[in-house]
């Protein structure tokens, strides 16, 4: 990425105040209402440094989860939760099935698969569709956010999410998930995780531009011999199935999605609503008929 010309306007290390449209300098894009924004997470660039986890926790003032060891590689965060909105998965691929240790390096940095997981900000959005209070809404940046002052903690968005992202915080009784740093976007800043990422594995930007960028990266990797690289969550690709048109946080993967704990073909739960009601109401009609048959008589 080339440096933006405006960077030269701010040579000091201590700034007098906020830089207008800071995202233009750090992510190469202005953040303006009415445009679609999202994350492109390139797993081949991730080094598992967890800087984004820290940045996310710091900015959003999220409490620490269990600080124990899981014994599952270096993944001691485990999973996304109400207080963890970014999480890196560590998948170790040091030897192949014949037990041969790799002697050549991959076209990217190692034989580890590292994936920084986050809320996918799906479109259409299963959690929003399930929310009976309207607490979940689509913002002017085309992201999905829970309004904390509306949510009453019914918890229906939790089983609705096909990626297992949304979670209830028992302490405050509300549902929580990644907001794609809604407050930062409002202030013209890029999300904390993307800004903190030292390898540009997490790239924030306008969705269409990110799609293009991601496609180029896939082609570049293929040219280098990694012909198993593919995109997850772009329209008509794995991850955008069953009524889900696309994911606003999409990924470049090199293994099957399940390896990263992602479903290959998630479905939009609300597609099961009409068939369910049809079957249920038909049964009720049957029960009514049966009751009439049994009870009908002369008054």
């Amino acid at each position, binding site marked *: 990425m080339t440096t933006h010309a405006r960077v030269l306007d701010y040579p000091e290390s201590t700034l007098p105040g906020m830089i207008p449209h800071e995202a233009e300098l750090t992510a190469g894009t202005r953040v303006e209402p009415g445009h679609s924004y999202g994350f492109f997470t390139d797993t081949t660039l991730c080094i598992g440094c967890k800087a984004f986890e820290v940045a996310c926790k710091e900015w959003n003032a999220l409490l620490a989860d269990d600080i124990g060891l899981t014994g599952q590689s270096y993944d001691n965060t485990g999973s996304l939760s109400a207080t963890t909105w970014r999480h890196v998965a560590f998948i170790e691929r040091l030897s192949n099935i014949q*037990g041969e240790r790799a002697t050549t390096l991959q076209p990217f940095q190692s034989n580890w698969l590292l994936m920084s997981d986050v809320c996918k900000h799906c479109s259409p959005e299963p959690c929003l569709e399930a929310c009976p209070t309207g607490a979940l809404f689509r913002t002017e940046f085309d992201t999905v956010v829970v309004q904390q002052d509306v949510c009453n903690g019914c918890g229906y968005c939790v089983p609705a999410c096909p990626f*297992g992202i949304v979670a209830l915080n028992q302490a405050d009784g509300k549902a929580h998930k990644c907001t794609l740093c809604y407050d930062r976007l409002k202030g013209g800043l890029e999300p904390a995780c993307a800004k903190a990422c030292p390898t540009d594995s997490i790239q924030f930007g306008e969705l269409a531009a990110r799609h293009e960028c991601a496609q180029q990266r896939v082609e570049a990797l293929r040219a280098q011999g990694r012909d198993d690289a593919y995109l997850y969550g772009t329209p008509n690709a*794995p991850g955008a199935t069953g009524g889900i048109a696309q994911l606003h946080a999409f990924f470049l993967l090199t293994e099957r999605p*399940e390896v990263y704990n992602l479903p290959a073909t998630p479905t939009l*739960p609300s597609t099961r609503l009409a068939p369910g*009601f049809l079957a249920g109401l038909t049964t009720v009609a049957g029960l009514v008929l049966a009751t009439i048959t049994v009870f009908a*008589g002369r008054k």
Partner: protein
Amino acid sequence: MRNARAPYGRQRVTTSLSTDSDRAQPLALTAPGDQARETAFPQAEARGARKLRAYDGETYYHRPALKPSPYGWLIASYFFVGGLAGAAQLIAGIADVCGHDDDPPIVRAGLYMGLAGILLSPVLLIADLRTPRRWYNMLRIFRRTSAMSIGAWTLTGFVLLSGIAAGAQALYVRTGAVSYGRIARYVGVPAALAGGVVTTYTGTLLAATSTPLWAAGSRLLPALFSVSAATTATAALSLVTQPKATSASAARLDTLALMAGGAELALATTLDRQYQQQGVVTPLQQQPTATAYRVGFYGLGVLTPLLLHSIHRLMPRRSRTVSTLASVATLVGGYMLLSVLISTGNASAQRPDDYFQFIQPRTATQPQPQQSPLALAAQCQQAVDTLKQALHESPSCLGKDVDTVEQIVTRLRDSLIQRLRRTGSSPEATHWQTALRRINAALSLIVGVEYPIAGIQRSAIEQASATLAQVLTDGLLV
């Protein structure tokens, strides 16, 4: 040779449940001979994307890929109370409109049961919210894609209509004014209809989630829930009207109970078969849920009432005891069903294998060529032989042999797991499960052979070889 002494090189052995054919080139997205099982994404392929290789049961450290719902006994109780009240209102409404002269006790009981239900249901629902003081936000919007929003509004309608009907009925009984009776009757009809919806939307609410066990029954759950509500409502009406109802009127309720019970049995068995086919049945087969489901729901809630009602019909005189027993059994069984389905749904959300398997496109789960038991036994024999050979070798050769055995045993274990997945509860399954446990134990021993810095653990090899040999002599792989 594998530089396998690095503990992190063990990933494949310890976490992947793979078939051999897919693993020839571990990182390739397509495997030869798997054309039918590949996941196709035509438009993505047009842009040059490869087909995904077939899913072979991998997970991320078996960590859940979904979050379980926060629903527990409060929601199960609401489903029970709301369903019962709704169905009672429905039955009362029908008996009122087209019933016999001796049916009014049933009509009254149904109205008051509806009243009890509408008083209790909101309490249960609000108590289950994590922020109960904001319960009214449920009525802030209407969202047609949310079963819970539809349900909240249906329940509100039911509460209002049913409350008016019951209030008018109470006034009619007290004052004798005909106009009150008329109100009770007219409002009773829409109240009954709302009650009908209340019995079934709860099933749709569960089905319209990503939880595998609930999504797998997207049509059958709503049907089963409304039929179950009908059986419990009939049972409750029968219990309450026992002292007042004429024997003809009580017999009509029993007939309805018999019909609804038969339908419940048919729906529940169909649902079970569907769960089996979709590969999500495991949480229902785990103890203590399995007992609660089989004995509590099927035994007590369905078969006992069906049997008692059938006997009752053949008896020359009506027996209060038989009728009461059947009703109590139905009520207990009805609650069991809801409580089991909610808790197993939550368990199912935490089983990544179930979820990933369940959402594979149908073509992806075509049966694979099954390995014959003979081949499994032969593999096991090969492992035993190689281990025995390894015992008499120098450390360097031993390492190579142990690696080979590790691969053979892992493959053996994978084949067994896949076979178990395919034929959930066949009579041989217990044998295979025992075999699997022992093979897993042997695998742990083999993996541990060269781990400690102290040197090679020959005793572990001996133990593993003995365990595998025992599997063979017990004939567990046949």
